[in-house]
């Protein structure tokens, strides 16, 4: 990039590499700490106060506990169900709705866009949102987790922007052949904006996987809890509330195992996302770029 590298610039570059290396390592260390601790001897982990940079012993008791823990495994299943259904419904509603909004010749397209964009600037707040979900009878049903957040105005704008770049001539020829708008959208427009659709699917899926707050206010029935809500009990509320699933059988070493369980649950909840995020990063970057063009 720069040919005449001055001494000052070289010093700066050395500093640049150093600081970025340090921050990268800082990002990695807590994750490694948790990973190593989850496989280590729990008594050793308890006695150790610093960062764990190497596992001590090899111990999979914590994982055995987790995979036989019915509420945790059940919540894992719930989360998979919620992520799939919410993403599928949200995506369908988003692409169906974005298509007419991307068409200039539709008289009300701008009015409707304004109607949706306004919700990004002003909202009713969490209490009114809760009361509405309650009044329409979704409270404590699986729909309360799936429906209320399945569409995001931001993702809608991403899809609409991408659709408006598709040349109308491509659609016109299909229209002359007698294809309806739904068919044209699915068969002609969507294949042309695959990358944007992938981005939007990932935005939706990651958000639903991590979703915790709405589930915590809408659900009472433990059998419907998503993973994150059970995690909250194990990781945070555990110290105050007694966790029925662990006490009893582990009375003597209860504390040790509780700690080990925490590390193992973090791993089980996080590893799936961490395994595939490097492959989807480019889609996230793309999404940010489209988003920034449109604002």
């Amino acid at each position: 990039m720069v040919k005449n590298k001055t001494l000052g610039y070289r010093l700066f570059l050395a500093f640049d590499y150093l600081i970025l290396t340090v921050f990268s390592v800082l990002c990695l260390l807590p994750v490694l700490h948790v990973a190593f601790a989850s496989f280590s001897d729990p008594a050793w982990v308890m006695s150790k106060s610093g960062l764990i940079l190497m596992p001590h012993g090899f111990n999979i008791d914590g994982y055995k506990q987790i995979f036989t823990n019915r509420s945790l495994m059940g919540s894992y299943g719930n989360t998979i169900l919620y992520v799939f259904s919410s993403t599928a419904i949200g995506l369908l509603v988003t692409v169906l709705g974005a298509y007419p909004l991307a068409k200039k010749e539709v008289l009300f397209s701008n009015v409707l866009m304004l109607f949706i964009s306004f919700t990004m600037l002003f909202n009713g707040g969490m209490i009114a949102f809760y009361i509405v979900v309650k009044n329409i009878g979704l409270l404590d049903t699986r729909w309360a987790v799936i429906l209320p957040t399945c569409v995001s105005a931001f993702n809608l704008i991403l899809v609409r922007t991408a659709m408006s770049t598709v040349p109308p001539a491509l659609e016109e020829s299909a229209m002359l052949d007698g294809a309806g708008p739904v068919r044209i959208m699915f068969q002609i427009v969507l294949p042309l904006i695959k990358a944007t659709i992938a981005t939007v699917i990932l935005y939706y899926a990651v958000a639903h996987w991590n979703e915790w707050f709405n589930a915590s206010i809408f659900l009472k029935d433990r059998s419907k809890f998503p993973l994150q809500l059970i995690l909250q009990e194990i990781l945070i509320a555990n110290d105050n509330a007694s966790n029925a699933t662990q006490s009893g059988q582990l009375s003597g070493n209860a504390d040790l195992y509780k700690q080990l369980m925490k590390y193992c649950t973090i791993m089980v909840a996080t590893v799936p996302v961490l395994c595939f995020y490097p492959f989807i990063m480019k889609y996230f970057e793309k999404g940010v770029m489209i988003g920034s063009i449109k604002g």
Partner: protein
Amino acid sequence: MRKFTWAAIKKDLRKHWALYLMAVPLIAFFVVFAYMPMGGLLMAFENYKPNKGFFGSQFVGFQNFLDFFGSPFAYRTIRNTLVISLLQLVIEFPLTIIFALLINELALGKFRKTVQMLTYMPYFISMVVMAGIIVDFVKSTGVIGQFVGLFTGTPTNLLGDPKYWRPLYIGTNLWQGLGFGSIIYVAALSGIDPTLYEAAEIDGATRWKQTIHVTLPGISTTIIIMLILRIGSIMAVGQEKTILLYNPQVYETADIIASFIYRKGLLEFNYGYSTAVSLFNSVINFVLLVTTNQLSKKFSEASLF
């Protein structure tokens, strides 16, 4: 210009009915989950009782607002919200840009890829797991708890002491969001025309001068737009992290407007009162966002809408 005459509307509906039909689920979604809650803001002026509904509950005018501003909670929650927000604005906001600039100086290659990959990672850790890791690290026997203990003499649980709340909140935000937040600036930086750098170099500009005169102006629109968003949401600190981590011992510095609304409304069922606080908060945010946007439009031509 579009004409919304009856004849035009009729013709449009006849021609585009199928397209409008496609938008029905989307419109229904926003009506139910965005506009109905806005209508629910009516509760702010009522002593809302769920069994009496929106129209049967007693109307109390501005009583809920007066109750809030007359209580000591108003000062505490507004102050804490503003302090956290301002810290984000003066610490996180510039550091994210600096981080992007540092990445931009690296040659494209393995090292740069690795740095980006590793620093994006914390963003994908869910808030609950993040909070779990924080709880574990800052307890008296945890890594950070012990580290701070070296300076204070006695390691304590940092989440039990109000003076550590803000540094912890901002520090962990940086850990989780710095890398991911920089993406938008890195993208903007890669869009700067390379011939500008070449020209600057021919003129003898040092790399530092190039940064000031080429790089920063090149991403100024992005910076301004992000700044508008940041300032427009200055009263909108999210509640999730706070609710997961705080406890009555640290309410003095930790309790923000959003967590207060959550406690009053969803834990104590004081719907009217908490909706009033929520409405106050939303209105301030809306006004801030629109005002900063207008100001920016006037002075820099960059605007959100």
